[in-house]
């Protein structure tokens, strides 16, 4: 889950399960009123496309939805995702990432348990993170996972620097009955298999860093960029100024590239979900979802 337009807009990736009521329905029949979210991307068999009104969802697909957080909560329910509050988290790996995450989660009142195999690092983490239980041992050791209470925890985060161990920890935890797990990985070859083998969420270190760098660049001082799914799609943000080319032109006549969609427009602090008759105004902030091939064209049109 990622946030845009200063947190007003959220991007959610949802898995289409068997039995979800909107399967085999054309998406145009599935529009909320008032509109406060929109589908911007569809991932099917590792390819991302822009869904159109006549697209039909199939089990096993992933859809990307852009919208206001409260509306997305309802959407999640529709997609049968359990919205269950996380109370206890187990983190494998007390490196910088593990400690940062543990510290933040603990500060939010969650019960956090940390597993680290290196003696000195485990001790350093235990000293730094008061209130977080730190276990010294291997995150792929069933006994350690059980001691840390995997069976009764809600979430496992495998955040060591070792992809294979992260995956193994997550799979062992899943097998012990943990609800959800997130794995950090760096080998791009794994991108396609991790979610297929039952890892709920896999975060690429490289993509996370790339996103952070791109965001820091503001792309010409105007935009906020986010990469999705190993660069197969991007969310970009643009501010509309007097020099923006599409100013005063209805969206249907704008010749926006086919592989992109203006998901949301923030006008006067409120989100608008543009249709064909949408006309951009000065001061608007546009959140655009685009496939890599179309990014250059989108920028040509929207960057002033």
């Amino acid at each position, binding site marked *: 889950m990622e946030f845009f337009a200063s947190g007003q807009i959220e991007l959610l990736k949802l898995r289409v399960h068997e039995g979800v009521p909107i399967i085999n329905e054309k998406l145009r029949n599935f529009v909320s009123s008032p509109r406060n979210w929109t589908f911007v991307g569809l991932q099917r068999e590792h390819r991302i496309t822009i869904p159109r009104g006549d697209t039909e969802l199939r089990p096993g697909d992933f859809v990307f939805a852009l919208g206001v957080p409260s509306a997305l909560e309802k959407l999640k329910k529709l997609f049968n995702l359990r919205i269950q509050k996380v109370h206890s988290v187990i983190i494998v790996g007390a490196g910088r990432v593990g400690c940062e995450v543990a510290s933040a989660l603990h500060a939010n009142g969650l019960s956090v348990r940390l597993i680290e195999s290196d003696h000195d690092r485990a001790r350093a983490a235990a000293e730094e993170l008061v209130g977080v239980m*730190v276990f010294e041992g291997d995150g792929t050791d069933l006994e350690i996972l059980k001691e840390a209470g995997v069976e009764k925890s809600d979430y496992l985060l495998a955040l060591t620097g070792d992809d294979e161990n992260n995956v193994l920890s997550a799979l062992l935890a899943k097998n012990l009955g943990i609800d959800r797990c997130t794995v950090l990985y760096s080998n791009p070859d794994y991108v396609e298999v991790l979610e297929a083998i039952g890892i709920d969420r896999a975060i690429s270190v490289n993509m996370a860093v790339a996103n952070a760098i791109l965001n820091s660049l503001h792309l010409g001082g105007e935009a906020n960029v986010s990469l999705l799914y190993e660069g197969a799609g991007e969310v970009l943000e643009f501010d509309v100024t007097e020099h923006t080319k599409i100013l005063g032109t209805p969206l249907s006549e704008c010749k926006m590239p086919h592989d992109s969609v203006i998901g949301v427009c923030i006008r006067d602090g409120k989100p608008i979900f543009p249709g064909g008759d949408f006309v951009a105004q000065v001061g608007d902030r546009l959140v655009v979802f685009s496939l890599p091939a179309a990014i250059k064209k989108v920028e040509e049109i929207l960057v002033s």
Partner: protein
Amino acid sequence: MNVKFCFQVTGKFVMYLGLLMLVPAVCTLFYPEDDLSAFLISALLTSIAGLSLMVICRISEAPTEIRRREGFLIAALCWVLASVFGAIPYYMYGVFASPVDALFESTAGFTTTGATALVSIEGLPKGILFWRNFTQWLGGMGIIVLGIAIFPRLFVGGAQLMGLETTGPTTEKFAPKIAETAKKLWIVYIALTGVLAVLLIFGGMSFFDALTHSFSTLSTGGFSCRDASIGAYDSVYIQGLITFFMFLGGTSFVLHFYFFTGKPGRLLRNSEFRFYLFFVIAATMFIALELIQTGVYGTFSESLRYASFQVVSIITTTGFTTTDFDAWPAFVKWVLFMLMFFGACAGSTSGSVKGLRIMVLFKKAHREIRRLVYPNVVSPITIEGKSISEKAVSSITSFFILYIFLCGFVALVVLMLEDISLESAVSAAVASITNVGPAFDEVGPTSHYSHLGSLTKIILSLAMIIGRLELYTVLVLLMPSFWRR
């Protein structure tokens, strides 16, 4: 190691000690009795001994720094030699027939133990009584420096934790900062002594009694110039005042220093102080209720008055008494006995194990129990949020084990040498090592140590010095590797 240098330093120390014997000599001028010559001869002998030691062990070039090994030897030598030379005035005047008794009394003074070999105190001349309490006061000064500036650098029994407040990073080198720190803390010590003396005079004590009792209160020594100790003054004001100042004597002088320099908040934020305060209050309430319950005292206020005095006196290892606590119920005596091991704060003048170490031991015990549930959990022991190195924790654990063993061993030797009750022997051993002084039964508050044999007295004197110097400082000298170059 530079042994010669150590003796040279202690020679200088002995010379100064000789000069300090002129202080009771001055005292005899105000209270003229027949003890002036004893002090003059002692002062002369001691100063000459010190000077000759300096001359014999003169070294062409003084080392630029004192290393840890030399630190241990100098600390041990200073206490042993002070005890030996401090005994001369008693022997010269003829207070004791045996030099061993004089040594025992002197050791109980410099180690601020307060165990006495005197059968009757009140008949002695003022100069001798002054010297007894003055040795405790000097001992207290030494302990403050030892506890705050020196032990932390020598890592004695995890003492490096105690240095956190003043000394900063501990190094092998003895910085000139020690003298600086010592001066600041001594000013606090002297000021508190003066304040107590003035307040005692307001309470109706004579000037002499007020001064000498102030000496043995702030140093948590426990010598009194009266046979009935503080019980001789039947005044709630005096007894309450002494209770409070014994409590202050058991508080870290670093905290006192902060308190007087405008950082009073540090006192209550200090977890060791809170722990100490908690134990004093809890033990007082416990004992006061038991004394009411068993009908020792009729009213709660009376019960509270005697209980608080005795609890503070024991926990700070002072050893003053207001009543014969040996006649109290066994339950109360056992609580007092356990308090002997607690001691007050590190960096105070009190002896025994001390609050900081007890806290670490409790936390370690708790961690070990938790380990049974979570064998792989990593939980550093923390004090005020700062984690303590495992090295220090294990040093403290072995300190405590050694402490208990030593108590057991000394009790064993005492029982072997003397035909006294088990209670007397065990409590005498513990009261000597913890520097409390009065114990139970045959060496209880109304009794004395004079009826014990010479060898026993020497053993107990050694026990006092070993306990005072926190075991390791003396025991390390027994290691052959210590003397190897």
